[in-house]
């Protein structure tokens, strides 16, 4: 298989985007990525779009976006893997380029989550779990992660302070990211006085729904080197599934899909976790970042809370994690998130992140979870 590199990136402003339609959000980042790659868009052979369709009033959005981008008659597909839909698009696009089927492709992650009425959104939120055996009792997204948190606290001694440390860190970096939804630092009191959503998780343990888009242009190695002298290579990919139902999970202190996806990605890239300098991980809730740093092998099992609270995941620590603000402060437009993570890591490896740049970053990683772990994608990026 051919080596595949990222030659162009685009990232829109995340948050309430009632100024733009879905395809307009997509165009913002498409324009930026094409300019960044400095290519003729006629070279783009196909488009993969990561987006979760049930949030949109427009049906079959891939075709509508392709049309608005002016890329007809080239093919497009929608990939759906809940909150990991963007990474599903990237993974699928990678297979097309690596296999030789395509030379240059577009990966688009985009989502409008504020288009539906509140009642419709709350209705969707009531069906995040297994609707046959779990949603019928009123299970919610924060509710599931609360079950994870309770077990982690009980078994590993994770504390309220550890959860708060995740939220504070990610807001500190979100404040430095011009594309983030929340650009304000928060203190411990702010987190701990916020309303309980599902004990022990509070409002400030949760990420926010957002609108937004992000975009990548991939190319096969030969063409990538002709086009760009700052290619970031996608050298390790891992993807795995785990039961959607919490009734069929052996252990709630880990996402088994993340462990398996990480194992694949590290093996393919030929690296150890300790070689990763910067990572974007799926902090849909504060406890999720604690699970992520453990599942990815950045620290010992059970030590995620103290590891983060000690500053080891800040810039200057052992590994910089979510220094773009994470889902927590950047916002979580679910279809865009996986692509947004990849854009951030590419920019870190190119050294373009200014006051939140991780110095000397040469290996970066993304960890993107769908649902409560039924899907997980881990990717390793490298610059030469």
């Amino acid at each position, binding site marked *: 298989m051919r080596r595949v590199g990222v030659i162009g990136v685009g990232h829109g402003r995340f948050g309430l985007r009632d100024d733009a339609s879905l395809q307009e959000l997509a165009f913002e980042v498409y324009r930026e990525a094409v300019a960044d790659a400095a290519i003729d868009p006629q070279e783009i052979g196909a488009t993969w779009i990561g987006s979760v369709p049930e949030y949109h009033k427009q049906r079959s959005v891939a075709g509508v976006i392709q049309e608005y981008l002016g890329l007809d008659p080239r093919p497009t597909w929608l990939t759906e893997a809940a909150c990991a839909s963007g990474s599903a698009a990237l993974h699928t696009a990678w297979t097309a380029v690596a296999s030789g089927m395509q030379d240059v492709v577009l990966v688009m992650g985009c989502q409008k989550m504020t288009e539906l009425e509140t*009642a419709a959104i*709350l*209705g969707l*939120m*009531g*069906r995040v779990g297994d*609707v*046959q*055996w*779990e*949603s*019928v*009792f*009123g*299970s*919610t997204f*924060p*509710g599931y992660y*609360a*079950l*994870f948190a*309770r*077990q982690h606290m*009980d*078994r590993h001694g994770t504390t309220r302070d550890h959860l708060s440390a995740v939220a504070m860190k990610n807001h500190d970096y979100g404040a430095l990211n011009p594309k983030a939804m929340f650009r304000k630092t928060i203190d411990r009191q702010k987190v701990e006085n916020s*309303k*309980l*959503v*599902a*004990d*022990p*998780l509070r409002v400030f343990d949760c990420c926010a729904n957002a609108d937004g888009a992000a975009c990548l242009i991939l190319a096969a190695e030969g063409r990538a080197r002709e086009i760009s002298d700052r290619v970031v290579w996608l050298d390790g990919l891992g993807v795995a599934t785990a039961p959607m139902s*919490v*009734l*069929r999970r052996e252990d*709630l202190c880990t996402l088994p899909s993340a462990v398996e996806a990480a194992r694949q990605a590290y093996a393919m890239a030929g690296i150890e976790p300790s070689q990763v300098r910067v990572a974007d991980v799926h902090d849909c809730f504060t406890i999720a970042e604690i699970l992520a740093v453990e599942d990815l092998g950045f620290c010992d099992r059970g030590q995620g809370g103290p590891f983060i609270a000690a500053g080891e995941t800040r810039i200057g620590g052992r590994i910089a994690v979510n220094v773009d603000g994470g889902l927590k402060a950047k916002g979580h437009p679910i279809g865009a998130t996986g692509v947004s993570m990849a854009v951030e890591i590419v920019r870190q490896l190119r050294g373009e992140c200014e006051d939140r740049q991780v110095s000397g970053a040469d290996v970066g990683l993304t960890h993107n979870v769908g649902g409560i772990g039924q899907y997980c994608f881990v990717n390793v990026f490298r610059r030469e």
Partner: protein
Amino acid sequence: MFESFGLVSFTSHTKVGDVFVAGLVEGRLLASRCASCGEQSFPPRADCVVCRSGDLEWVEISGRGRVSSFTTIRAAPVGLEEWVPYSLVLVDLEEGGRALALAGAGLDVGELSLGTSVRLNPCRSEVNDELRVYYEVEADS
């Protein structure tokens, strides 16, 4: 018949619905067992995940188990607003399988810890002549 299971319903048809709901109406908790290889499942499933057989038997289980985790939901989805706050308990069942269920009136969630022995109790109620069947978690006396 399965639309009567739970507090709200999203799944009206399932191969395991009629027998399971009839069991709850009679106050019995039923697990499925593969007639071919013996794999037991709670909640029940129509198709054996081990040997792929579609022949299933039903076995009654005691509902005894231990708390695996729990939470109290304070932001409810549509249709459950009047229940807030409600507590959900994840129970590892003694006879295999797991259930997510509401904490019953007799269970003090404030005193709950992981590993506590509990029991899953079948429940039924008639709301506006409409049958609802479900199960709740109670202290194991």
